[in-house]
């Protein structure tokens, strides 16, 4: 791409020195995309500032301060990534993939356990959860493999290869155990394959296999005495189908979240909110932050947030179509699906129509790894956008 620029400079002798904005690459960025992402992060900080005042005794801004810092770091990372030509990641695919698998595996050795699951490293200033960044890394690596392997082997062999490449890290994450993230990995894998053009028939077979496996894991395996999922996982996965049966167990969280959101009515209850303020809704600053928004700001607030996600997704999808090369298309597609999947599953879980899987709401849920990784992914989208614009400009200049 630098070549493009050089050529262009040669051909426009009268061009003035590029302005500071142009040198920063700002004119070529997808402004709305960055704006929507920033707005979501800001709304997250705002929500946390109102709802977590009493969560950590003595420091009312504990979560707010940290989330703000993560957001700023994330935006900085986004900008840096946007300035890099994403196409380089294609060449680094093997390295990226190796790093992905190794970092996830290291958690088993060095990670700290939280609630029976090892997911993160405890770094001095925050805990780093490799599987969050892994969502982006998987997209970048897998897209590279798809492009590269496009001419090797039969369709079927390729499909199997991509599946194996995608499902290996998914399996690692699943063993942490982190069911939700492994599902995101699965979704990413399927998305990249989908955009990459894997035949419909293969998807049909994969779909059938998934259904068969789900049946096996949830019903057959426990029946023959070798359950693959931990009890609480099975319960979470199925409780949304019968949420009221036992309000004190798995269905409880879902019931409480639903009650909280419903009680927000149209305009929200503001500081009169009780469900999310008095611990009725668990994990309210992370997985169930949407319930906080629903109760405090009502339908207006929740619909506003959903709209921001819809717009974000629209911009991501637009970038899929704009990309200057197939690698960009695949990467943008993978990121778009990863965002859509996480938003739908998380919000659906808050609304009681999806199982509880522990997937954070991108940019809204408190957590450094998730916020920063999501911003980095947006950065990659921006990079695809910038490169597309630059190449278009070059073409027009011709």
């Amino acid at each position: 791409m630098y070549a493009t620029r050089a050529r262009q400079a040669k051909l426009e002798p009268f061009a003035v020195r590029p302005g500071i904005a142009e040198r920063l690459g700002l004119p070529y960025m997808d402004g709305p995309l960055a704006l929507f992402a920033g707005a979501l992060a800001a709304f997250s900080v705002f929500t946390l500032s109102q709802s977590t005042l009493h969560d950590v005794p003595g420091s009312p801004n504990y979560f707010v301060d940290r989330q703000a810092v993560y957001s700023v770091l994330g935006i900085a990372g986004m900008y840096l990534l946007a300035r890099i030509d994403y196409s380089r990641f294609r060449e680094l695919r093997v390295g990226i993939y190796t790093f992905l698998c190794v970092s996830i595996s290291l958690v088993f050795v060095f990670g700290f356990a939280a609630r029976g699951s090892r997911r993160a490293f405890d770094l001095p200033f925050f805990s780093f959860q490799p599987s969050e960044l892994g969502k982006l890394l998987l997209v970048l690596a897998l897209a590279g493999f798809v492009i590269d392997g496009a001419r090797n082997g039969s369709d079927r062999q390729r499909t199997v290869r991509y599946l194996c490449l995608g499902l290996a890290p998914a399996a690692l994450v699943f063993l942490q155990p982190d069911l939700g993230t492994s599902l995101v990995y699965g979704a990413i894998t399927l998305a990249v394959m989908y955009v990459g053009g894997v035949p419909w028939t293969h998807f049909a077979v994969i779909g059938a296999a998934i259904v068969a496996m789900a049946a096996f894991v949830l019903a057959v395996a426990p029946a023959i005495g070798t359950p693959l999922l931990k009890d609480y996982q099975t319960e979470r996965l199925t409780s949304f189908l019968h949420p009221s049966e036992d309000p004190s167990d798995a269905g409880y969280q879902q019931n409480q979240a639903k009650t909280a959101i419903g009680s927000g009515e149209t305009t929200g209850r503001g500081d009169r909110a009780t469900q999310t303020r008095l611990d009725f809704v668990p994990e309210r600053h992370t997985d169930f932050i949407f319930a906080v928004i629903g109760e405090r700001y009502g339908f207006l607030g929740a619909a506003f947030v959903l709209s921001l996600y819809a717009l974000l997704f629209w911009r991501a999808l637009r970038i899929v179509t704009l990309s200057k090369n197939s690698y960009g298309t695949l990467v943008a597609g993978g990121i778009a699906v990863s965002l859509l999947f996480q938003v739908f599953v998380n919000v659906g879980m808050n609304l009681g129509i999806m199982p509880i899987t522990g997937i954070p709401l991108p940019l809204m849920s408190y957590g450094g790894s998730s916020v920063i990784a999501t911003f980095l992914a947006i950065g990659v989208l921006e990079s695809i956008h910038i490169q597309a614009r630059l190449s278009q400009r070059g073409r027009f200049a011709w």
Partner: protein
Amino acid sequence: MYLRSDERGPAVSNRLALRIALFGGIAVVLFAILFFRLWRLQVLDGEQYLAEAKNNRTREYRVSAPRGEILDRNGELLVGNRTSLALQVNPRKLPEDRAERRAELSRLAGLTHSTLRRVRRTMHEELKLAPAAPVTLRRDVGRFLVYYLQENQDRFPGVEVQRVFVRDYPNATLAAHILGNVGEISPEELKDPRYKGLQPGDEVGQDGVEDTYDSILRGDPGLTRIQVDALGQPTPNGRLVSKPPAPGESLRLSIDAEVQAAGEAALAERGQGAFVTMDVNTGEIIGLGSSPTFEPELFTRPLTQKQVDDTYRNPAAPLANRAISGLYPTGSTFKIVPALAALENDVITPSEPIYDSGSITVGGQPFQNAGGEAYGSVSMARALQVSSDVYFYTLGLEMWDTGDLQRTAHMLGFGQTPGIDLPGDTEGLLPSRRWRNQLFEEGKTDRPWSAGDNIQLATGQGDLQASPLQMAIAYAALGNGGTVVTPHVGKEVTDAQGRVLREFAPPPRRRIPIDPEYRSVILDGLHDAAQAPGGTSYEVFGGFPVPVAGKTGTAQRVGQADQSWYLVLAPYPDPKIVTAVTIEEGGFGAESAAPAALDILEAYFNKHTTGPAGPNGGSPG
């Protein structure tokens, strides 16, 4: 067809465009699902969830209100309250471990003389209705148990002791049948609209005025609504509503404790029986008792097996209120009824004599005077004074198919519930031609109505069944000139400061025309019976300073010794009170019932020392 890395130009091929469009379509559908679901939850069903949320974060604790006091007509305390300690279990603070929990509950069951199963069932039932609220396991626990629990608190997490109000009876058994008792509301009562708003574990009156006037005495439990977090712990400043308990209003009875005590003592020394003392003009009950009696205190704590046997399985039925629900033949005390019926219907005049030869024979069946006496030619007053059975047999025979006797008896209240403000009053049985003939038609008896039935009825025998209260009402009607009163023990309702809020003065059931001449003839006869030599109860009342009009009764009961009756109006000739006494197996009326009535009248007139105006009216006659 896979994409090629070097593909350029229009960034997307047609096939890819299709896939992306499909992808966008799926996204639109997914977002639409989320939006509609959100709309449904928040806008359409929001109200319901809001209510649920409010319910979610508040806990209501009821603070029991003390029941109102019950006083006698002079303000003497009959039923009060004392505080007692109740053992409660807070289910949220019980150990989470099942085995530990079980162990603790079974230890508790042992300490409270209960079983693990019973404790569990109590908890289960109460928690179903009031989730997370403390469950009362036992009321009125002893101090030593409380000390023990406090010293071993670590072994009994979640066990709390709370102060509750318990009924207190300073006079032990006094007026037990009138007062009744309180007890935990039963599942059936909970469904009764009368007890709307009550919860399991609440106490309601179970008998006597505690039951009749429950709504007045009960009071309103206080309510503290506390905001709690998800663990059920109160939040700071989380007290939302606090309604103090409103104590029940006090009930003042028309009972006079001294008369009541005298009546009960008089019964107690003479066996099983009952008495009623009533104001003849207003129907206020001044004393009403039944023997044997019981201690209402008994019901403030769980009964032991022996106590259950003694109260519920005792053949003497101490809980039965014989004064209002005891049904007996009344013997000669009934004679005022045929007297009144015969006079009012011109069957006989006051002075018209009937020759009493000691017996009459009707339809081949002889009817004899009690004791085989013969009084010769007797008129109305004399017949009442000596209690000539033949005189009244004759009246009964005269009226056997006219229904006059039944009509008068019915007007005076026989065969109907008296409508007293106590549960359990009965209508008894007034035998009549129609009643027996109908039974006969249905094949339930061997013969139709005959003159013999009416002859028996005229002397209070045969099929007649009446309660002491019904007799008292009939005599009161005679005494007051024809008003059939509505008897009542409730006099007025007062608030905690003693101000009268409401007075009870139920209107009389009816007024019946009684010729004053006839009334005085009958009263004269009764007065002579009590206080003129030769009268049936002269030996008992002859020396009593207050002029009275009294009638003995000796009722024959199958398989039992005679039942003793006495009905007395005082003072003569303008009675204020009527007293009815009956003693089961007490022999002749003058033998046990009349002396008991004397005790009661002495207690009454000792207090009302105004005494008889003028000289003692003990005119012989």
